[in-house]
């Protein structure tokens, strides 16, 4: 399937060291605002399909709100139990105060 850049949200929509989740191009995506920039991964935890929206973003890691499975927000890599399956990560770019995600 061809990937395309989609306008996801304004940079102001995501607080510092936080995330939002939204439907984007048929996918449920999490967009993170970190000191290293904006990143995007799948929005559901790969462990038990819990939405990550109420999770904790800290030091470039998203922690699932239900079981505290942890993923790297940059790569989607599962970092600790009970999460073992990586999340899909998506390219992002910021233009004119908007966050674009390639999905």
């Amino acid at each position, binding site marked *: 399937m061809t990937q395309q850049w989609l306008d996801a949200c304004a940079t102001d929509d995501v*607080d510092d060291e*936080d995330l939002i989740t939204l439907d984007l191009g048929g996918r449920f995506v999490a967009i993170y605002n970190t000191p290293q920039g904006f990143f995007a991964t799948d929005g559901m935890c790969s*462990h*038990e399909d*819990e939405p990550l*929206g*109420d*999770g*904790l973003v*800290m030091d470039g890691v998203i*922690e699932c*709100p*239900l*079981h*505290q499975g*942890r993923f790297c927000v940059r790569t989607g890599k599962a970092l*600790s*139990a*009970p999460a*073992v*399956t990586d999340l899909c990560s998506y390219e992002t770019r910021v233009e004119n105060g908007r966050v674009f995600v390639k999905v």
Partner: protein
Amino acid sequence: MITNAKTSNIHLDKKALKALMRRSDRPGLIYLGSWLGLLAFCATLVMLSVGTWWMVPTLLIYSGIFAVPAYALSHECAHGTAFRTRWLNEAVFWLTSLLYYEEPLHRRYSHASHHTHTWIEGEDNQMPFAPIPLTFSGWVEEILGLGLYCHQTKMFVSHSLGVFSDDVKRVTPESELPRMQRNTQICVAIYLGFAAISIWFGWLWPLWLIVIPRVLGGPIMNAFILMQHVEMAENQPNIVQSTRSFRTNWFFQFLYFNMNNHIEHHLYPTVPFHALPKLSEALTDQLPKPDAGFLNTHWEVLKITVRRSLGHDDRSDKIRQAFPDTPAGETNDTAMA
């Protein structure tokens, strides 16, 4: 069946939740330091009183102070919420899980199932071993923790050999089973190695300060654990109906890492122990009143199990209790209000 804040119709503003979830090493280090300091003080009293009658009260007090926080801190570290620094969290998790007598990875996965399917028969891997609702003999079994000792010992043996039950496989990804086997082998090696060194050098202090206190403190620890869900509604998605919070004094809150706020913990498990009282305040309007006191609540549970065993009325108007005959497993909150 899934159990979480959404299935319990509880809502908390995201900004408020984010503030409560904030991690720090400081509260965990203060708690850990206070616990170790208190243990060192009581351990000195125990060793000084060996061979005298003073040993009975000092050992009992030491056992409670040893076992309850070992369980509570292991639980907090299983969630990854005790410390901000990950290696510190994992190091304390290993140490306290060894004291609690459970391999850490298994502890993490079985506890994850307890949170996903709280008090759902056949899905929650941390339900009591005795049949529920508890009779008096079931209460004795749970308080002594005999089922738990047998279960954990069996798992230390079978997991070391790479044999896993269907229950364990149901909650653990297949790719994690080799790691669970390796971890279990490390735990068994630590237990056996420590026992061998103690025997070789003729040390008695591990017996007085670790083994006996774990066994003597077990019932006190199990009394805290039992309060979390006993007499509450099974097999329904609302955590408020399946879980109990209770008030208790500052010392028991310290020993139990604030887990007396247990409904709050199940609703938002990412909130660390030190922020649970604030979370409780934030949810006051949405939650039933906590039961009054650890000892009062437990005494009431004990009376219920005795009455039930004798075939008498097992209803209580002093603690929250499910009405098992209602489809939604409603509790007596309204009656008590």
